[in-house]
C-alpha cells in the first residue's frame, strides 16, 4: 500500500468520524466546527482524486461559505451562543484528529503534481472548456435556480410578513 492509498484510507476514516461527531455532539457550535473539518477533509480527498479545481471549490464554498452560513443560522436563532458550554476546551483527541487531517491535506497536495496518474486533461482549463461547452445548459439552469432561490429566500424572511 503506497502513500496515496494510505492517505485515502486515513482521510476516509477522518471523514466518517468527523461526520458522526458533527451529528452527535451536544453543542451546536461544535457541530459546525466538526463539519468544517469534514469539508476540509473531503477537499483533500478531491486533491487525491486528481480534481484540484473541485478541491479548491470545496474549500471555498463548503469550508468557507456554507460553514459561515450555518454559524450565522445558529447565531441569529440562539440567545447564548457564547455560553458556558461553547467556551469549554476542545480536548486532546479532537486536536489530534485535526492535526492528522491537516498533515494529510498537506500530503495530498504535495503528492498531486508528481502522481503518476496525473493526466493533463484534468487541468482546470480543460475542465472549464468542458463546463462552459457541453455542460453550458447545466450552468444556465444552476444560475436560474440560484436566482429563484434568492427571490424565495427574500420572500421568506422579509419584514412585516404574517407568521
Amino acid at each position, binding site marked *: 500500500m503506497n502513500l496515496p492509498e494510505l492517505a*485515502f484510507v486515513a482521510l476516509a476514516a477522518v471523514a466518517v468520524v468527523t461526520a458522526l461527531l458533527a451529528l452527535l455532539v451536544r453543542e451546536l457550535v461544535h457541530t459546525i466546527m466538526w463539519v468544517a473539518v469534514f469539508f476540509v477533509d473531503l477537499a483533500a480527498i478531491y486533491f487525491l482524486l486528481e480534481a484540484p479545481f473541485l478541491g479548491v471549490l470545496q474549500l471555498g464554498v463548503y469550508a468557507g461559505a456554507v460553514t459561515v452560513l450555518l454559524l450565522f*443560522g445558529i447565531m441569529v436563532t440562539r440567545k447564548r451562543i457564547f455560553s458556558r458550554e461553547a467556551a469549554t476546551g476542545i480536548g486532546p483527541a479532537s486536536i489530534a484528529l485535526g492535526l492528522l487531517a491537516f498533515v494529510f491535506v498537506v500530503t495530498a497536495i504535495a503528492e498531486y503534481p508528481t502522481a503518476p496518474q496525473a493526466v493533463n486533461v484534468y487541468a482546470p482549463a480543460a475542465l472549464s472548456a468542458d463546463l462552459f461547452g457541453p455542460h453550458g445548459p447545466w450552468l444556465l439552469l444552476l444560475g436560474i435556480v440560484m436566482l429563484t432561490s434568492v427571490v424565495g429566500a427574500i420572500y421568506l424572511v422579509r419584514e412585516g410578513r404574517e407568521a
Partner: protein
Amino acid sequence: MTALPPAAFLALSGALLGVGIFGLLSRRNFVLLLVAIEIAMNAAILNFVYFAAFATNPVVGLSGQSIAVVVVGFAATEVAVGLAIVLALNRSQGTIDVRRATELKE
C-alpha cells in the same frame, strides 16, 4: 492510486450517506438537519469525482467533474434557502425544533 478497488470509495460514500440519513432521522434541530443533508450531498459529489478520476475516456472524466461543480452550486443554494426557512421558522414559532413546526398540520 488505482490499486484500491472501487468498493473502497463506494464504501466511504455509502458510509457518509448513512451518517447523513442517520442525522436526518435522529436530530430535531433544523440547523443540524441542514448539516446532515450537506453530509449526504457530499457523499454524492464524492461519487461523481472518483468515477471521473477512474474513467478511461477523458471526456467522461471531465463530464463527471463538471457535474460535480454544478452539484456543489445546487448544494450551496439549498443551504441558503434552508437558512431562510430557519429564520422564518424561528420568527413564527420562536424555536427551530422541527417537532414544533406543525402549523401546516392543524
